[in-house]
């Protein structure tokens, strides 16, 4: 199956439709919530939460013996939440910095989870196979009820975001100030963190513990490059996340052996790369172009100013001068001279140049402007 076939099949084929819808919704909700994590400088929180969820999955399996995803994800949710609040506790109660707390909980929970997983694998239980799909995710196992679950959580998340938009915004920007205005910042904080945990847990089946944080961060980091408005950023992150889901699924479904989670993450990374390079205001490319253009303008202005100084000493401002004189001035190049001719500021005759009236006028204006800025 190639990609074209995929897109013609996606509307008719039940399995493909389910998986695509699932990854798209997942991408949208993690992108949305990821924006908040990125802006709170809690980018690594997602990584810690997803790793912290692993022992929950194993314990849920050990306790129930069941393999249906809802039971296991409930376990993931509980241990993810425990991990998150331990991280908060460590940060507030000790002198440890947040990166230390995150790393500590991440490795501790993940290690414990791996221990339990290997223990489970040694058990004579036919059900045990497939638990390791939560490590790297397996989108192919998504069924309709999983997608419904994602859709419902995303819906609730949207409603909460819209209702508490103003509160979220002020908490993100200036927490202390929000407190003085009478907002219970702890409640807002817990609300938003809980939703991040929920979204991560929902994605474990599809993307897996190890790569889940990329779903949270990549769309948000890409979206930040394109806008200076929080609402637009959240919206764009959701779009980028959803597109990553759709294209990731398309590519992995059309290339037989590629697993979906990593492909989705790679697509999201492409969004990030393109955004970093090509965004008009913050992108590297346009920044560099602006930088070079500014330098050129400055060079041109300096050369013109130098000529102006020479011309000023003569009664006739268009009195011709040897080009050689300009060699004393470091900023001068053949290119700048040509540009000045193009702009009709200078005329060339043999080895001499002379300033035109227009050039003289604009040079003196340049001067006045500079002086004005100094005031």
């Amino acid at each position: 199956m190639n990609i074209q076939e995929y897109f013609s099949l996606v509307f008719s084929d039940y399995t493909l439709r389910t998986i695509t819808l699932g990854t798209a919704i997942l991408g949208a909700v993690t992108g949305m919530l990821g924006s908040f994590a990125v802006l709170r400088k809690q980018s690594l929180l997602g990584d810690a939460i997803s790793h912290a969820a692993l022992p929950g999955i194993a314990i849920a399996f050990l306790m129930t013996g069941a393999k249906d995803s809802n039971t296991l994800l409930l376990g993931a949710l509980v241990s993810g939440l425990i991990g998150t609040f331990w991280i908060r506790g460590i940060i507030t109660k000790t002198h440890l910095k947040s990166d230390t707390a995150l790393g500590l909980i991440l490795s501790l929970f993940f290690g414990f989870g791996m221990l339990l997983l290997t223990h489970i694998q040694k058990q004579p239980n036919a059900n045990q196979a497939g638990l390791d799909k939560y490590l790297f995710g397996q989108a192919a196992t998504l069924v309709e009820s999983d997608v419904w679950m994602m859709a419902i959580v995303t819906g609730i998340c949207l409603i909460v975001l819209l209702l508490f938009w103003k509160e979220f915004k002020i908490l993100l920007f200036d927490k202390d100030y929000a407190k003085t205005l009478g907002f219970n910042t702890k409640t807002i904080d817990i609300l938003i963190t809980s939703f991040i945990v929920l979204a991560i847990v929902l994605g474990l089946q599809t993307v897996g513990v190890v790569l889940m944080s990329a779903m949270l961060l990549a769309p948000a980091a890409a979206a930040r490059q394109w806008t200076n408005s929080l609402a637009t950023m959240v919206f764009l992150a959701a779009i980028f996340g959803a597109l990553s889901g759709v294209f990731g699924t398309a590519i992995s479904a059309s290339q037989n052996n590629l697993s979906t989670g990593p492909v989705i993450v790679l697509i999201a990374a492409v969004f990030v790369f393109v955004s970093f390079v090509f965004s008009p205001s913050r992108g590297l490319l346009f920044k560099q172009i602006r930088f070079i253009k500014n330098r050129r303008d400055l060079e041109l202005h300096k050369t013109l100013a130098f000529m102006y100084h020479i011309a000023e000493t003569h009664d006739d401002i268009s009195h011709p001068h040897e080009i050689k004189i300009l060699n004393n001035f470091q900023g001068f190049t053949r290119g700048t001279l040509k540009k000045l001719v193009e702009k009709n500021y200078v005329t060339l005759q043999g080895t001499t140049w002379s300033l035109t009236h227009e050039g003289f006028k604009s040079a003196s204006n340049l001067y006045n402007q500079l002086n004005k800025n100094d005031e």
Partner: protein
Amino acid sequence: MTKIAVQVDDLTVAYNYKPVLWDIDLEIPEGVLMAIVGPNGAGKSTLIKSILGILKPIAGSVTIYGKSYEKQRSLVAYVPQKGSVDWDFPTTALDVVMMGTYGSLGWIKRPRQKEKKAALEALEKVGMLPFKNRQISQLSGGQQQRIFLARALVQDASIYFMDEPFQGVDATTEIAIINILKELRKAGKTVIVVHHDLQTVPEYFDWVTFLNVKKIATGPVKDIFNDDNLTKTYGINYKVSIQE
């Protein structure tokens, strides 16, 4: 007799074992423009944050016009230190000033035309109206400070707390800000400012509190702003020449 705007009793605050503020008693009369001065680590910002309920004190109490801060929130506005927020946050100048209206709006309710109008007026007052749609990271340090000031003005409070509003601003902005503060005092408001530049205290303020973990002195600038109190506060033999 003038009313007491802010009253602090036996306030003690500690982050760990060492107290940052020790047994502070302070009465701030209504309508003064007061500087809080003291060396680094003297607890100036901590005092403001404790009064505003951002920090929880170990002991002591604070009242605003005789009642607890929680009940009098709407009478108080706060200008935090400029460095306390991330100015690369994706939002505009107008949007930040609008945040000043969030308190009176309360939970869930969105700002509307009325709030926007108030925010625009505040921007006008601090001379930042032409920059209303500017992304905040593209503002200079002085402009960012004015935005913070405008956000507090929108709150239309009776008491203003400001944490180093003159930090890192140029002379033009400093004059603009102090003029606004003086206008607030003229309108009968109480303004409390954490201040670092001792030279300008007599010129800008009419009331001063010396703080170094303990309260050293508080009162009218003309009575207590002297070498004796400065030496007690800063620990070295401090001499300023007060120009009359």
